[in-house]
Structures are given as structure tokens and as C-alpha cells.
């Protein structure tokens, strides 16, 4: 059993390598989008929330919050289909890892924004206020207070996002997104090759464990509280 599994593994190595590469590409793209746009959005929503430094921009806060909620309430598979015209428009096709990265990024941006906003709430108001009293600008408060004081929570937020979107990227495989999930579905599901299914699952488990372990280790290391 184990031998035949190993044989299948070696036989499929090129395919697995390609699939892993595609998964990696999807993750890198959607995590980058999440960090840049989701991170900024989350920070802005936090800063404009009631009682915070930019709390006077209440309307922005309401609109941004609404946006995040709407996008987060879409089941991913529906988002995937719903944005496919948009995807075709900017990538030129609606299949393949690049195309799958569009809905993945969209979902990741709003997912991460919410996580960041909630993580930043752990920074005591008094510490932010002390910085305000010292004459810090909102940008200085973000860069030198929020991102520093919440850094271990932020690392954990990235970790959770990476793990979630590893599994979302497998869902994207269903519509021809490629990647490890696609491999599992093509061989394991459509062709009843249970051994391939097993290999991909083991692969995913190892990846998730790795990401989770590294994230937690790093978060602990930078936490001086």
C-alpha cells in the first residue's frame, strides 16, 4: 500500500510540482493583495471607528464596514462565479491560477481587513492617546504605535489568512484554477484515484502545519508584552 503510494507519488511528481507552484502563485498573489489593500482598509476602518484618532470620519467608517460585510457574506464559490466577467476583463481568461487569483484576492482583501481591524482593537486606547498627546500624526500612530504594539497579532492574522486561502485556492481548482486542489479533484475525485487524493491531502496538511507553526513561532518571538 505504502509502496504503491510512493510509486504514484514519484510518477506524479512533475504534476505535483506544477500544482504546488500554481498554489504558491495563487497564495502569493492573494496574500500580497490582502496585505496591501486589506491591511490598509483594516487600518482605516479601525482609525475611523468610534472614539479613535480619525473617529470624525464616521461616514467612511460606515461605508467601508458595509463593504467588508457584503463581500465577506458571499460564499466563496459564488464570488468566484460572480466576478468571472471582471476576471476575464483584467486577466483575459477565467481559467488558470492567474484568473483564480482575482476572486481569491478579492475575498482575501476583505477577510484580512476585518481581521486587522479586530487585531488593532487590542492596542489599549491609552497608549494611542499617549502618542496623540506627544504630537504624533495619524500616520505616525499607525507606523510607530499600532503596527508595533499589535505586531504579534498581525503575524497571526497573516497566518490565519494564509491557511484559509490555501484551502480556498483548492476550491478555485474546481473551476479550473489549477493548483493542488485541482490535482486532487481531477485525479482523486473524477478518476477515483484515492491514492492521489491521499497524497494531495497529506501535502496540504504538511503545508498548513508548516504555516501555522512558523506563524505562531514568529508571533511569540516578537511579543514583548
Amino acid at each position, binding site marked *: 500500500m505504502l509502496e504503491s503510494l510512493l510509486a504514484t507519488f514519484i510518477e506524479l511528481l512533475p504534476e505535483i510540482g506544477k500544482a504546488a507552484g500554481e498554489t504558491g502563485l495563487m497564495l502569493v498573489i492573494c496574500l500580497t493583495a490582502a496585505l496591501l489593500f486589506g491591511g490598509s482598509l483594516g487600518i482605516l476602518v479601525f482609525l475611523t471607528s468610534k472614539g479613535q484618532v480619525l473617529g470624525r470620519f464616521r461616514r467612511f467608517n460606515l461605508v467601508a464596514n458595509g463593504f467588508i460585510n457584503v463581500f465577506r457574506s458571499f460564499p466563496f464559490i459564488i464570488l468566484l462565479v460572480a466576478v468571472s466577467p471582471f476576471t476575464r476583463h483584467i486577466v483575459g481568461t477565467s481559467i488558470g491560477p492567474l484568473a483564480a487569483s482575482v476572486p481569491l484576492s478579492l475575498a482575501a482583501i476583505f477577510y484580512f481587513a476585518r481581521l486587522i481591524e479586530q487585531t488593532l482593537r487590542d492596542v489599549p486606547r*491609552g497608549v494611542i492617546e499617549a502618542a496623540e498627546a506627544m504630537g504624533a500624526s495619524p500616520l505616525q500612530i499607525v507606523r510607530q504605535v499600532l503596527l*508595533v504594539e499589535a505586531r504579534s497579532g498581525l503575524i497571526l492574522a497573516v497566518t490565519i489568512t494564509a491557511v484559509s486561502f490555501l484551502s480556498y485556492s483548492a476550491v478555485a481548482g474546481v473551476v479550473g484554477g489549477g493548483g493542488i486542489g485541482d490535482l486532487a479533484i481531477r485525479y482523486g475525485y473524477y478518476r477515483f484515484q484515492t491514492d492521489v487524493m491521499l497524497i494531495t491531502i497529506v501535502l496540504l496538511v504538511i503545508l498548513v502545519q508548516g504555516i501555522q507553526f512558523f506563524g505562531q513561532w514568529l508571533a511569540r518571538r516578537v511579543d*514583548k508584552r
Partner: protein
Amino acid sequence: MTTQPTDVPAIQLRGVSKSFRTPDGQEVGVQPTDLEVAAGEIHGIIGFSGAGKSTLLRLANLLERPDAGQVIVHGDDLTAMPPATLRAARQRIGMIFQHFNLLHNRTVADNVAFPLRIAGASPERIRERVDTCLAFVGLAEKAGAYPAQLSGGQKQRVAIARALAPEPHVLLADEPTSALDPRTTQSLLEVLADVNRRLGVTILLVSHEMGVIRRLCHRVSVMEGGHIVERLRIDQGRIPPGSQLAQWLKDYGDGTGDAPEEEVDPTASLQREASHA
């Protein structure tokens, strides 16, 4: 250190008021109030919980924006300033808090450097000021420690060093010793007295502890229901007899809950400037 002319009041609150909206109607924090703190003075604000002490203090650096009135610090009207100018003005107004509010992921030295970094000071000046201020509060050897490794009293000393780093003319203190035990309180009051005497920094201090006010302050404003109901000069730690405050002292003790007032010699450890004695 400070070169401010002493005839200009350090802080003037003119007719400031602040009300907070609560779900059940309006709750007033501070009624229209005037307060003047002379340069070089230690001015106390005392009163019961909810009297509006913290709100009044926070009006002095516009952490709380008044509904009406003016906040003038060293002759400059903070309420009339655009945001960038206000931020620059705040860099010369230090503030310390009951719960210290240090950055926990930064070392002691980095905490003290923080206001200087914000102000864009040079690395040489930052190093020089951090060393000077940590030495002033007696924590030079803790420069590399993180706040979590310090006691409460040490954390407040770091907070004082941080507030002093940009060489402020004015220090605002909201219950700076309320989270500390009596002995630590005593040593911190000595640090604050030093800040005032040796560096010439004007201090506006909120406390509900009579002992703190008596040992440290030259003058005191008594607050009740959002008003200043009494303004007193504290001479040699003595509360003027016949005042509302003297009555409170009689009724409730000096707030430290331990030593009765006769045993405390408020001038033993704190020497005041002759002009205030």
C-alpha cells in the same frame, strides 16, 4: 532649562466647557470654567470621582476639544491652531497617566526616544536626551529592558522620562500615583518635585488623594460637578482651615487610607522654592 518668561501664565483655560452625550441625554463633563496656572507652579486638581478632573486636564492639551472657550498654553491659543501646528505645540506639553501607557514592544530607551523620533530629532540628540532623562529618573541601567520587566513605579519613571525627553515647559499628570503603593508614591512625588524645581517645568496634576496634593502642590483647584468650587494656596502642606477641602480632609482622611495626617510631615522630603513656601 525652560526660558519662558514667568509673567506669562503657563496654562490658561478660558471659559472652557465640555459635555458628553450619553444614550440617556446629556452628561456634562466640565461646566464653563476658568483656570490659570502660573509658570513654574505645581497646580493640583482634586475632587471626587466623576467631578470632571480628567476632562479638565485633557482639555489642556486638547485631547478633549472644548465645546466652547479657549485653551492657551504659554500664550498660544491651541484651540485656534490647525492640526499640524497643534501637533508641534503638543510636543512641548508632556503628559503622564495613571496606567503609564508605555509601548510594550519597545525597550525603555525606545519609549523615551519615541516623542523625539516623532519630532524628527537627530540620532545624536535622541541619544543625549534618552541618557539624560533616564539618568534623571534614576533608571539609566534599565535602558535595554522592556516595560513588562519593570515594576509599576519604574514604569511611571520611564513615562516621566519619556514626557521630559522633548524638554517640555508643561507637564500634565492624571492620577500619576494612583496605581502605586504609598512608598512608591512618595518616591515618585519626589521625582515630580525635582522636575518642577530643577527643570522649572510647570505641572498640572490631577489626584483624588489629599496626601499627594498636600505634599506636592503649590496651589489646588477643588472640583465638584464639573465646576471648580474652590481655589486654594497650599502653604507648607497645610490646607487652609475653614475651606471645603479642609472639611473633606476631616471627613474622609487624606485619601491614602493609612497614616493619619499628623504623622506626615509634608515638607520633610520636599523642599519648595522660597517663593512658594
